[in-house]
């Protein structure tokens, strides 16, 4: 089956004064219809840049230097700006992190709701309005007529995020990209918004790519998880595999740094050190300076991806033997 979105070996780099710096270094993933993929990682590991590359909305000095992005079988990387514009907001939509700043303060919610409809459909004013009301009701805002006439500053953060979701859904996209949609919200509102995205995904059959650094969010919504570190995908797997059987030391570190309220004895284990800079040259595995299990080999050679199970992959030398052993087992049987 052909997947909805397929990213192969994506390299996104930025032109800076020090030359070209790759922020995303060969990322591959795919999203099926009706599936939620969570991209997890520390701030600055290339999560957002990956999603912006898919949208074709990289900053002026960024460019996709290698790899391919296919959406519904169409290659996006070579598309002209005009053609990309027809996809954006229509087939592929995006929700942003800060609902406080992602709505234009000088226009009413209604005006902004009609923007995507104006851009991608030929509905007349009345139809647009009824569609806007329908959408706002769909995202759980009661009294939609009233909300349409309000300005963003008159709405609460949760309401604004709902409006953002409604705007993103206006043209029934088949892929929704959510860039930390709940980071700026209260925990209670967070749960509501996540439920909402989940429900809408089921109802509309969308694929969802959710970028987050919150493991709690991942556990709640993800079908599959992709862990990124310093521009690389270090581990991918289904949500059960990642949470119950994390393989990569970085994933283990991430999970260990999630507070556990049930266990009073539990002390948080932070991953020592910090994310390397884009221009830092690190030989071998980019995680080895912070890795408690680093060996000589890690310092010298960049590990390939090792298959652990059908969907579970880890980019760590530790699993070299495991896989080779397993493949040997397979060969024997």
């Amino acid at each position: 089956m052909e997947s909805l979105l397929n990213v192969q070996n994506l390299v996104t780099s930025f032109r800076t004064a020090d030359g070209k710096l790759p922020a995303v270094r060969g990322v591959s993933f795919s999203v099926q219809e009706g599936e939620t993929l969570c991209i997890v990682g520390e701030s600055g590991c290339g999560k957002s840049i990956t999603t912006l590359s898919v949208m074709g909305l990289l900053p002026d000095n960024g460019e996709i230097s290698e790899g391919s992005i296919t959406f519904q079988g169409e290659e996006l990387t070579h598309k002209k700006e005009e053609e990309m514009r027809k996809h954006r907001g229509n087939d592929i939509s995006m929700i942003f992190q800060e609902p406080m700043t992602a709505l234009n303060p000088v226009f009413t919610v209604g005006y902004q709701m009609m923007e995507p409809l104006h851009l991608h459909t030929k509905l007349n004013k009345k139809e647009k309005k009824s569609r806007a009301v329908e959408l706002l009701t769909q995202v759980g805002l009661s009294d939609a007529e009233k909300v349409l006439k309000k300005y963003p500053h008159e709405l609460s953060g949760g309401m604004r995020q709902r409006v953002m979701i409604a705007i993103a859904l206006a043209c029934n996209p088949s892929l929704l990209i959510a860039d930390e949609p709940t980071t700026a919200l209260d925990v209670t509102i967070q749960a509501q918004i996540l439920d909402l995205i989940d429900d809408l995904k089921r109802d509309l059959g969308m694929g969802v790519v959710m970028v987050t650094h919150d493991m709690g969010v991942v556990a709640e919504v993800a079908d599959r998880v992709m862990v990124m570190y310093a521009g690389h995908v270090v581990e991918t797997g289904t949500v059960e595999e990642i949470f119950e059987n994390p393989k990569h030391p970085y994933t283990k570190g991430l999970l260990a740094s999630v507070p556990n309220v049930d266990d009073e004895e539990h002390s948080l284990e932070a991953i020592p050190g910090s994310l390397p800079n884009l221009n830092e040259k690190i030989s071998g595995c980019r995680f080895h300076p912070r890795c408690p299990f680093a060996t000589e080999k890690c310092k010298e050679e960049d590990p390939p991806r090792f298959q652990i199970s059908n969907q579970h992959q880890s980019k760590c030398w530790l699993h070299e033997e495991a896989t080779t052993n397993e493949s040997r087992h397979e060969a024997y049987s």
Partner: protein
Amino acid sequence: MADSSALAQKNINTNKQESKKEKMVVQTFKRLVKNKLALFGLVIIVIQVILAAFAPWFATYPPAEQDLVNSELGIGSEGHWLGTDNYGRDVWSRLVFGARVSLLVGIGSVALGLVGGIALGLLSGYFKKLDGVIMRFVDLLFAFPGILLAMLIIAMLGTSLINVVIAISIWSIPTCARIVRGSVLSVKKQEYILAMRSLGASNTRILMKHVLPNCTAPIIVFATMRMATAILSTAALSFLGLGAQPPTAEWGAMIAAGQDFMFTSPHLTIVPGIAIMLVVFAFNVVGDGLRDALDPNMELDQ
């Protein structure tokens, strides 16, 4: 004025969607009026606008009508409360018609300057590639002293009020472009612009419909302040004989004509001088007041 405000009132009632925007205007106006100096300036501007709009009703004589028998009458003379000039023309009537000229030239040149400045500012702020080129061009315009540039343009185009408008508007372009560029640079970094792009909006649409409305406050302030400069420059150019040609009643030209009679009839220079001063002062304080009224941070200390 009264008609238009009544019309605006009607709009509020009929168009509920715009009522919020109207509210914003009313709010700004209320804050502006709280500032005593700005209120004073506003009154002067309103008086000038009324005089200019209904000049034939307020003028007691045609502005160019000569009456050599009654020349050089002083202030408070019978039938000419501001006196007459060396040709016996009524100073009050000329002042009233002069208000019309300076207002029209001011509005015309500011409007033209805004169109050019906003266009350049939007382009250079939004498109990084154009930024360098446009800003160097603007620097070039900045390098000339304003009045010299205006004189240069008039020397090329010939002396007339329309050319004065063009000259002054060209001179307003660089400042306006700089101001708009600054606002665009800060607005375009906002997440809602990225959100608009993620919806598939074209650059033109984003610029005109989303960036520009967020830059209106500094543009309004600039336009008001610039009116003062424009009126002053018109008077200066006319004084130098590059603007209004006789017998057109224009304040700068009136001063120029009156300077030969400074000792015998000082009111010929003083009266139009005061008019210029008051109007320029009024636009400046209103601009200042508007800047405070449109600044959302000011709410805290009120």
